[in-house]
């Protein structure tokens, strides 16, 4: 009798372990949900996984930097099977907690944590920056475009440099002379300052401004809309912003030419998929145009502003980058200086 009970108990326990649905906790940086960008995008990917795999998920938004360690630790202690951390500033804390709890599993978005139990998802932003830069250089009417970045950190730098390389590529191959204005806000959350910087670039003659990250983008979109409403009736030129990280075209429909999407949602979804299938592995994952981890938005509201001819060129360019025909797109400003755009026949 005792044996039967014992066996039954073992069966019960094991079945509990196997039947338990994976539990995922996301820990944001101080920007938090509602940035209509990075954090939201990751959360959307997790929500999709919730729907598809029936996992459970929760989010902790950090209020200040000192929150990172306790929030990550609480996530581990709550029995999370996978902890998703977002934002480069949280990186050091993830490393500390991942070392402290080697049995917990982590996904680090947008930064590298060299620990076995962390899957670090980094992107080759320069690839999508390149495509965006080429598009912008082909579309601009004033021959001047802009870039308003958040903070000068490696992922943003790769975007910026790729963007400028794309413009350089078009200048060489299409015999143009498109200029680019560069400005940085110094933070990801200073909407008014981002707006005024974008305004300045429009006033200096740029007609398309790339919004390089964070909540800043909202200010840049507003600047594009307000500037267009004021000056489009006079000179007939529509001013555009370029969205970033996820499809932001809907925020100011018609004033956002396209969005350079970093599909963090696809990345986190595939990590959760691996977890569910028992294939999760730590390490560095470098994600690019191939596999659709980077892409342009479908331009739902702005199709009429871009000629079909241009779109064809962009599609071809994308294929060339994916297949390695165009390679060594610069990642840093130093590499950009040395970058010689290849001659391509279109």
């Amino acid at each position, binding site marked *: 009798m005792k044996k039967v009970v014992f066996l039954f108990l073992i069966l019960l326990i094991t079945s509990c372990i196997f039947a338990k649905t994976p539990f995922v906790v996301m820990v944001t940086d101080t920007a938090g949900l509602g940035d209509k960008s990075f954090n939201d995008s990751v959360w959307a990917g997790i929500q999709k996984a919730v729907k598809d795999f029936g996992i459970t998920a929760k989010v902790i938004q950090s209020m200040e*930097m000192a929150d990172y360690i306790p929030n990550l630790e609480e996530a581990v202690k709550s029995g999370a099977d996978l902890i998703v951390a977002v934002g480069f500033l949280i990186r050091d804390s993830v490393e500390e907690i991942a070392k402290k709890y080697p049995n917990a599993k982590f996904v680090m978005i947008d930064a590298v944590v060299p620990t076995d139990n962390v899957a670090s998802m980094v992107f080759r932003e320069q690839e999508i920056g390149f495509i965006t830069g080429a598009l912008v250089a082909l579309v601009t009417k004033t021959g001047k475009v802009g870039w308003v970045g958040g903070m000068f950190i490696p992922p943003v730098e790769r975007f910026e440099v790729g963007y400028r390389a794309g413009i350089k590529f078009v200048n060489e191959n299409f015999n143009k002379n498109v200029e680019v204005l560069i400005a940085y806000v110094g933070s990801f959350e200073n909407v008014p300052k981002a707006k005024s910087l974008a305004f300045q670039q429009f006033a200096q003659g740029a007609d398309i401004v790339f919004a390089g990250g964070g909540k800043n983008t909202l200010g840049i979109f507003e600047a594009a809309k307000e500037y267009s409403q004021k000056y489009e009736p006079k000179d007939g030129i529509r001013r555009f912003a370029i969205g970033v990280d996820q499809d932001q075209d809907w925020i100011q429909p018609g004033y956002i030419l396209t969005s350079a999407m970093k599909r963090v949602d696809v990345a986190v979804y595939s990590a959760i998929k691996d977890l569910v299938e028992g294939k999760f592995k730590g390490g560095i994952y470098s994600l690019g145009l191939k596999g659709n981890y980077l892409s342009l938005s479908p331009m739902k509201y702005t199709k009429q502003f871009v000629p079909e001819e241009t779109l064809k060129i962009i599609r071809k360019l994308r294929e060339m980058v994916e297949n390695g025909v165009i390679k060594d797109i610069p990642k840093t400003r130093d590499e950009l200086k040395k970058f010689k755009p290849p001659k391509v026949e279109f």
Partner: protein
Amino acid sequence: MDKSRLRSFLAPIASIFFGLAVGAVFLLITGKNPIDTYFWMFYGAWGSPKFVAEMLTRSTPLILTGLALAVGFKAGVFNIGAEGQLLFGGIVSAYIGAYWHLPVFLHPVIAIIAGSLAGASLGFIPGWLKVKKGLNEVVITILMNYLAIYFTNYLVRGPLKYGYLPRTKPILDTAKLPIIVNGTRLHLGFILALIIAFVLYFIFERTVWGYSIKAVGFNPHASRYGGIDVNKVIVFSMLLSGGLAGMAGSIEILGLHHRFYGQFSPGYGFDGIMVALIGRNNPIGVVFAAILLATIRTGSGLVQLRAGVSKEIVWVIQALIILFVAVSYIYERFFRFGKINLQKGEG
């Protein structure tokens, strides 16, 4: 006397409950369980020795910036520049902690002194300008905040950048403030902050120095007439205020973050205004006010995880509690003034 003492103790507690009650209405409107929420909020700060240690860790910078503001208020100067002074103190300590090689005990001491001096020098300028040129310290300190924020940001992205993120080199082990409770993040800085609060209390209550600061804050003209060098007192209190704010930054870096991040402070310098007001500019009151603020902040992660309440709602509740405490303070002041006038009228 005893009655008013009791009231000044009970009033903030009553107002906390008021804040919680109004917060509960908010939670109910958003469809969350208030009891659950408050349970996790307080559990996250007081639920276990580890949580208490974490909460005290978080109160440390608030105590020091609260004291910095309180010292200014006592002397009748408003040091809004505490945030900049804190950042300055932080980066100086981070530099000394990472690049100087000093023995174990000496290293943090030198780093803290240097950080405090950095903050003090930033406090000195507006104090000196106020005394010599009659410039308003509020304007100067606000402007100097920008100076400090952008200058430290420049340093952490430029000359002092370490690796590819905007942060400095980690400080050496010799410079780290020792952890005082094993398995937590509670470091010696907390004890240091407590000692400084007691020392300041002693200075204000028992020394001529402290008395002259209070006198200047109460009525500078009468103080001058009474033979106090008002200018000296104002410059000195700005020095002290800046020094305390600088020390707050320095202790945060040496005790908690172990390197300087551009965004390590969520605005501790501005929180100091709130802490000083809630603590009624009394150094001991400041300690309690900082612990109150840390209590409602530390549990925020746990509230989100366990009670499923979003960050924004947690913020609203925090703001409500602080609002009610601040209102009770104002109410009480007016109430007292009314009483005094009444007595005068009768007499």
